[in-house]
């Protein structure tokens, strides 16, 4: 790595930092690029699985991005998609095994969705679009940025869904018992996937209201 540095670009130069910050807002994987929606709907009924899912995606995406960036010059273009898939699948299985060993309860809740990280379009999209043509360090930052952009939205959705759907956050009771005695009822619809889609829609709306750059001309 070090021999390739021509102009000795600092590790956290503005250009590099932009790789992270841009994904949080202007090209957020979920709300702007509309990728990875499937898992965003599936694992966000409670906050805990959403956080674990975000961390899993972060690890998989950052690691695969670095591996592909390191291999990028040797990968034969004709089988590059297969190579990318092998790398992603290996990472995902490793993460799945680690979750099963150390956070078994959460891994049971996430069930098939950890395995389905393999098919999360954000990951393969970043490998193909970024890691194949960049050095490992920017690729690493790009992976972190995209996974954070994904994770932030996931946590937001899960926060709203758990709060209004179950009245709890991370299984701690937030809405006091007094409200329930008074006739307040948890919104059962929040637990169901359709409401997650509507929540994503509301987040996109709010984001576009405050970020004028995202609004199309017409």
């Amino acid at each position, binding site marked *: 790595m070090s021999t390739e540095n021509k102009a000795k670009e600092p590790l956290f130069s503005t250009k590099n930092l932009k790789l992270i910050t841009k994904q949080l807002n202007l090209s957020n994987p979920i709300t702007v690029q509309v990728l990875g929606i499937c898992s965003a709907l599936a694992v966000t009924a409670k906050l805990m699985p959403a956080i674990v899912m975000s961390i899993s995606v972060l690890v998989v995406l950052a690691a695969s991005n670095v591996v592909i960036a390191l291999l990028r010059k040797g990968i034969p273009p004709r089988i590059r998609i297969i190579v990318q898939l092998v790398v992603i699948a290996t990472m995902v299985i490793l993460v799945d095994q680690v979750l099963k*060993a150390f956070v078994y309860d959460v891994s049971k809740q996430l069930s098939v969705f950890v395995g389905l990280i393999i098919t999360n379009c954000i990951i393969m999209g970043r490998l193909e679009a970024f890691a194949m043509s960049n050095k490992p360090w920017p690729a690493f930052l790009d992976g972190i940025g995209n996974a954070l952009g994904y994770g932030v939205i996931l946590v937001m959705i899960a926060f709203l869904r758990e709060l209004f759907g179950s009245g709890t956050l991370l299984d701690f009771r937030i809405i006091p018992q007094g409200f329930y005695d008074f006739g307040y009822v948890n919104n059962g619809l929040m637990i169901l996937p359709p409401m997650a889609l509507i929540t994503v829609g509301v987040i996109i709306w709010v984001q576009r209201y405050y970020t004028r750059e995202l609004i199309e001309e017409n």
Partner: protein
Amino acid sequence: MYSNGYIFRYAAILVIVAAALLSLAAMLLKPYQDKNIAIEKMGGILASAKVEGVETANTIKAFNQFVVEELVVDKDGNAEPYKDGKMEDGPAFKIDMKKELYKMSKGNAYHLPVYVVNKDGETIYILPLRGTGLWGPIWGNIALKDDFNTIIGVTFDHKGETPGLGAEITTSAFKDQFVGKKIFHDDGSFMSVMVVKGGAKKLPEDMQIHGVDAISGGTITSNGVNDMIHDVLTVYLPFIQKNRKQ
């Protein structure tokens, strides 16, 4: 351009490296995963006996505390007790139901586990269950009172039943139906507990104590639960009949 030889070599080396990594990880993490699976099994056994306040962190302690005896039952219903020492190391806990039921289907000798729980002075017998659902195996535990007739509680779990349909067998709404049901008819004949499509109300009045409602949209899983309880209890029947208070 890359030659075909290069591509083949590249793919082969990549796959071998990936396989080596994964096998290494699987080997290193196996003990931790096995411990989690054992804890889950213990939790299921305690949950079927309605032992309260069991969490992942204290499951092993609670298991050793509440399970006072393990029995290994042979096909004639003779029980080999195990009382001293840690229950988590007991012979019954090590038994794999899947293997034993397979041995039975092949006509070989088999041994079945029974756990005896003492909860507030009440003796509860817990029999593990195993059967097939729609997509894969289902399993669970059934806790019986010391009359070997009344059900105290059940637990179910599954490998991959349809979420929202078959997977509903793990919800308390389904499991709570079993509490208080009886596995023997008043005249002494073995009835099991039937999972009835369309609801237990369809059964004749005197049979309703042997039936629970099936899950709408989860018919094959419900039938699987029905068969699992019937088949496994039938295997245990010699043991149950020996110990049953008439």
